[in-house]
């Protein structure tokens, strides 16, 4: 593993290796988080060309818990806003002796392009509608933590699959680990082709509820509403929103995941969001451990012959 661009680059063994490593970075309840000297003298650049709060902070904390130096580079107020090309930004970073780049971009493919310009590991923190691999890994980690396994589970991904990089990564990660995936969405919010994916589709969430282990809710992007993808947030909530009545019809151990930020009252009601079935805060906490694992595994392999995965 040289870069982390797409979940599709990982097989089940790679994913298991990342999740097992992340296990060691989780903080036992009641203990303060540990800091490790592992990446001392290494510099990680957070190159955030699109707004992000939780992912940037999560990567920032992960790098700092491993004692790496962190440089936060955002588009606003940087040379990018002065019109510097993407390639020149990359070459500048390279010349300054960066050891890894975490990149968030509104353009699908930017992390892959960057990996061609740089010799150091590139970690994709979300690119356009394409991929958000660390989000999928932390979701897999959270699901495995709850059920003790990933295979033989039925996961429904509900909502705006079309515009969601999270959905693309989660679908590929969950199916790679042997779980069953059903997409629940109005036809307007599904991509025109589902060809590479081994998934089922339905518009009827209610019929599916009793057999689900995981309901994964995608965020409703409010700007989509005005574009006619669905009539109103009230109608969305009525057909695809998670509420206590729907939760009650699921298995006892079933859980609800959401990548955040949540629109309470649209895709999830407040009482579900605050219930024990919602693992949203676990997802956030596990995000740090999973990103520490990714940084450790990518920055740890200095010599090409040590390449294990």
């Amino acid at each position, binding site marked *: 593993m040289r870069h982390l661009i797409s979940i599709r680059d990982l097989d089940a063994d790679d994913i298991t290796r990342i999740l*097992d*490593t992340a296990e*060691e970075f989780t903080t036992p309840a009641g203990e303060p988080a*540990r*800091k*490790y*000297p*592992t*990446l001392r003298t290494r510099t990680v650049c957070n190159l955030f060309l699109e707004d992000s709060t939780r992912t940037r902070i999560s990567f920032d904390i992960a790098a700092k818990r*491993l004692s790496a130096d962190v440089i936060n580079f955002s588009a606003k107020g940087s040379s990018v806003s002065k019109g510097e090309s993407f390639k020149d930004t990359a070459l500048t970073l390279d010349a300054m002796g960066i050891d890894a780049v975490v990149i968030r971009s509104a353009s699908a493919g930017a992390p892959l392009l960057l990996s061609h310009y740089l010799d150091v590991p590139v970690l994709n923190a979300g690119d356009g509608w394409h991929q958000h691999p660390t989000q999928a890994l932390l979701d897999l980690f959270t699901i495995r933590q709850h059920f003790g396994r990933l295979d033989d589970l039925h996961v429904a991904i509900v909502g705006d699959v079309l515009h969601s990089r999270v959905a693309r990564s989660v679908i590929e990660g969950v199916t790679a680990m042997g779980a069953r995936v059903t997409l629940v969405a109005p036809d307007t919010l599904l991509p025109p082709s589902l060809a590479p994916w081994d998934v089922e589709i339905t518009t009827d969430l209610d019929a599916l509820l009793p057999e689900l282990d995981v309901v994964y809710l995608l965020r409703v992007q409010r700007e989509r509403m005005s574009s006619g993808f669905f009539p109103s947030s009230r109608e969305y909530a009525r057909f695809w929103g998670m509420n206590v009545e729907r939760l009650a019809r699921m298995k006892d151990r079933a859980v609800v995941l959401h990548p955040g930020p949540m629109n309470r009252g649209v895709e999830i009601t407040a009482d579900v969001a605050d219930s024990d079935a919602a693992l949203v805060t676990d997802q956030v906490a596990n995000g740090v451990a999973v990103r520490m694992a990714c940084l*450790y*595994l990518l920055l*740890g*392999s*200095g*010599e090409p012959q*040590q*390449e*294990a995965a």
Partner: protein
Amino acid sequence: MSSPARSAGEVGRSATARQVLTADDLSRAVTRLAHELLEANKGPQGLVLLGIRTRGVPLAWRINEAIRQIEGAEVPTGAVDVTLYRDDLQHRGPLPLGQTEFPCPVDGRVAVLVDDVLYTGRTIRAAMEAVLEFGRPSAIRLVALVDRGHRELPIRADHVGKNLPTATDQRVSVTLAEVDGADGVFISTNSRGGDSEGGG
């Protein structure tokens, strides 16, 4: 059948390997180490045993058991995985991580690190850093089953089971029933040089 633990045992029993401690010798050495530790500490009070992964952990538990038999006292016993504290991550690549388990806070206690082979001292330096990151023990002591020399850092063990003069191209393997199926200490000449166990 070909787990790493098993193959370490196989190396020990290969034709070129010479056995330097038998299972009985090893057991007597552990008992003596427990006695020495108790004598130096004037009893079991305030001790916490921390085995360094992999083979230091069962050794720490054996010392724990020996102390129980001698004094009837239970000494808190845990494990330290030094992987994240190593100074050679960039040369070796990301090794799999093991769990670090502190059985109790170390503040004000005597933390006793337990390892199978003391070699360069780098593993011990890393283990000390792990312990100091967790708390402030009143002292850190080191127990090694075998001291094979060739230190690269100013570190020495407080209690040693067996001093074993070696050449750098020799390999010392400790096998323990819990990990490898049988107890013993073996020395063999390794054509590639050095100790692939990580040079503790």
